[in-house]
């Protein structure tokens, strides 16, 4: 415990936009060729002599973890007024293996350029203490560190999935979060409206439906998740289920407004099984009832069968496949990864019910296979997207999930790129920023000191 407040904590989201520029990015990389996964530390400071180099690679001690998402032990939520403790430090990265159900706790404090594993939670312990497996999203919050998990607490991981808690001081598992889960069965992402004591969770599927690749038959049959759930943060009880309709398969990333006064947020749907479109939905509170409506539709793009991977040849079109979204700290721009069509869209969501497409970059794509402006060939498409706290830089990578990568892309090679943001709308790929990771498939990026999806705030913006 420190004597003063952690300088990376900000009371409001808008204040966090004044944060200094990030100098390091932590990039999770996955290896499918019999080698362990890694956490790579990348120098993203253009003034530095090691700019755009991996300054250290922390090779994990096990094979087959399948790194995916990860997050910090502490964040701006430690300024929340009911128990303010900003003296807790943002120093540990909690890095789950989505396939192995193992979690690594990695210390970045002693040398931020060379983080070290200080603790490993083995799958058996995780399953026994939480009743879950396949840990996924990490958010620091009021009761400690919250982790979503996609599978139940067995090797095969039959549902329900859910959320469990880790103590942010002792880094010990506290147990399952839910009190009454109601009809909730599938899990994926979660986040909250801290000012209103509400948690929102989304649905991908249970491990039997994703570990061996996308099951097309199940998707057509509407068997992947198509709902979001609203919970009470205090009682841990399920309150409401919002069904987007069976045809809207896989409801993934949740991005609530960063202003705790607001009661709306955005969620991405991977695919509509009737027309292969993807969509963004806005959830909102109206007279004590939570509601949701579709606010962006991104249509599939016609393509010749010979340009398409096997599962898509029969459709003659490339589906956008929204796999990740991210919201800038001022709630102004929503970034949408279209992993299938190889596009990253930027929407002005100042009015959350009528987003406007204001920017787009193209790279990769199942049919277009567009190269990076540097000339480097690019497999895969925009996937995990992270926005700097000041909102000026957008970083993204290209791998989704090993077995799904292989279905949609031949011999995918990991890359990490950056786009620069025009504050009035518009994005452009930085032609000098292309990092080739080769056989290491790149997943989530976390920026040193925090980014647009790492922190929660208890105080409304002051202006």
């Amino acid at each position, binding site marked *: 415990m420190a004597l003063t407040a952690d300088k990376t904590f900000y009371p409001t989201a808008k204040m966090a936009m004044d944060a200094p520029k990030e100098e390091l990015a932590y990039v999770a990389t996955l290896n499918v060729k019999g080698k362990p996964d890694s956490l790579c530390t990348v120098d993203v400071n253009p003034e530095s002599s090691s700019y755009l180099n991996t300054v250290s690679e922390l090779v994990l001690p096990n094979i087959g973890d399948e790194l995916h998402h990860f997050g910090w032990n502490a964040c701006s939520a430690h300024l929340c*007024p009911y*128990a*303010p403790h*900003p*003296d807790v430090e943002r120093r540990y990265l909690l890095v789950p293996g989505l396939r192995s159900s193992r979690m690594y706790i990695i210390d970045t404090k002693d040398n931020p350029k060379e983080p070290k594993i200080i603790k490993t939670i083995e799958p058996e312990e995780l399953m026994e203490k939480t009743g879950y497996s396949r840990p996924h999203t990490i958010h620091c919050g009021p009761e400690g560190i919250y982790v979503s998990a996609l599978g139940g607490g067995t090797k095969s991981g039959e549902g329900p999935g859910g959320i469990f808690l880790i103590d942010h001081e002792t880094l010990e598992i506290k147990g399952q979060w839910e009190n009454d889960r109601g009809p909730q069965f599938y899990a994926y992402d979660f986040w909250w409206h801290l*000012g209103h004591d509400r948690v929102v969770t989304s649905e991908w599927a249970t491990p039997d439906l994703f570990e061996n690749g996308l099951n097309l038959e199940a998707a057509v049959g509407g068997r992947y998740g198509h709902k979001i759930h609203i919970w009470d943060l205090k009682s841990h009880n399920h309150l409401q289920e919002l069904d987007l309709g069976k045809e809207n398969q896989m409801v993934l990333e949740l991005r609530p407004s960063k202003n705790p006064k607001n009661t709306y947020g955005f969620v991405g749907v991977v695919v509509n099984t009737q027309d292969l479109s993807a969509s963004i939905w806005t959830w909102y509170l109206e007279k004590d009832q939570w509601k949701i409506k579709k606010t962006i539709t991104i249509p599939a793009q016609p393509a010749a069968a010979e340009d398409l991977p096997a599962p898509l040849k029969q459709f003659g079109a490339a589906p956008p496949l929204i796999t990740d979204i991210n919201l800038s700290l001022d709630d102004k721009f929503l970034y949408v990864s279209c992993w299938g069509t190889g596009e990253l869209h930027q929407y002005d969501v100042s009015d959350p019910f009528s987003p406007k497409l204001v920017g787009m970059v193209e790279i990769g794509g199942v049919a277009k296979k567009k190269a990076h402006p540097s000339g480097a060939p690019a497999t895969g498409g925009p996937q995990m997207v992270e926005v700097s706290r000041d909102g000026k830089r957008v970083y993204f990578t290209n791998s989704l999930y090993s077995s799904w990568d292989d279905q949609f892309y031949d011999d995918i090679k990991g890359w990490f790129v950056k786009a620069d943001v025009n504050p009035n709308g518009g994005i452009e790929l930085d032609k000098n920023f292309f990092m080739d990771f080769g056989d290491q498939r790149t997943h989530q990026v976390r920026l040193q000191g925090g980014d647009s999806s790492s922190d929660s705030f208890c105080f*409304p913006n002051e202006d």
Partner: protein
Amino acid sequence: MEHGQLYFFLLLGLYHGINPGMGWLFSVSIAMQKESTSKIFISHIPIALGHLASLAVTIFIYYLISDFVSQKTTKIIFALVLIGFGAYKLLKKGHFNWVKMNVTNFDLFLWSFLMASSHGAGLMLIPGFNYEGDHLIHHLEHFGFIALVFHTLAMLVVSMILAFSVYKVIGLKILRSSWVNFDYIWSFVLIVGGLFIFFF
């Protein structure tokens, strides 16, 4: 009541009022969430009452014990409790668990009561009662009430002024520029108080 004691209770009132964990920060967030300056003042009523209730419970227990055992034993018990609690707060990991932002007045009362109790706010006041000296110990009931009211009023005024200034003038940037770890100071005050009871 001697002047020294009055100052002691007022000073601790000032200290509790400054501590963001005792209410002013919660009050600011409520005012911001509801966009209402009057919430600063309204929210302070349950905050002050909760604080007062927690102190009253502690002092009541103090009297109860002093009725049953000798004054010397009471002193030793409370000296140990203060030192022990201070050391515990210094060493323990984990925090008071409250997650609700959307609060009623009763929630705020309860929150303030629990926050003051879990931080040992009442214990911190005990050295002030002890200072009275042997011959006055049986007249403390009346004096105790006045002392708590003085303390709570001081805490209330300081907390309200702080909340109002932060909400209206200073802004939340004070949380980044002026934060000190109150847990450490809090623990030391408790330990010093325990030593005081023990030796005086």
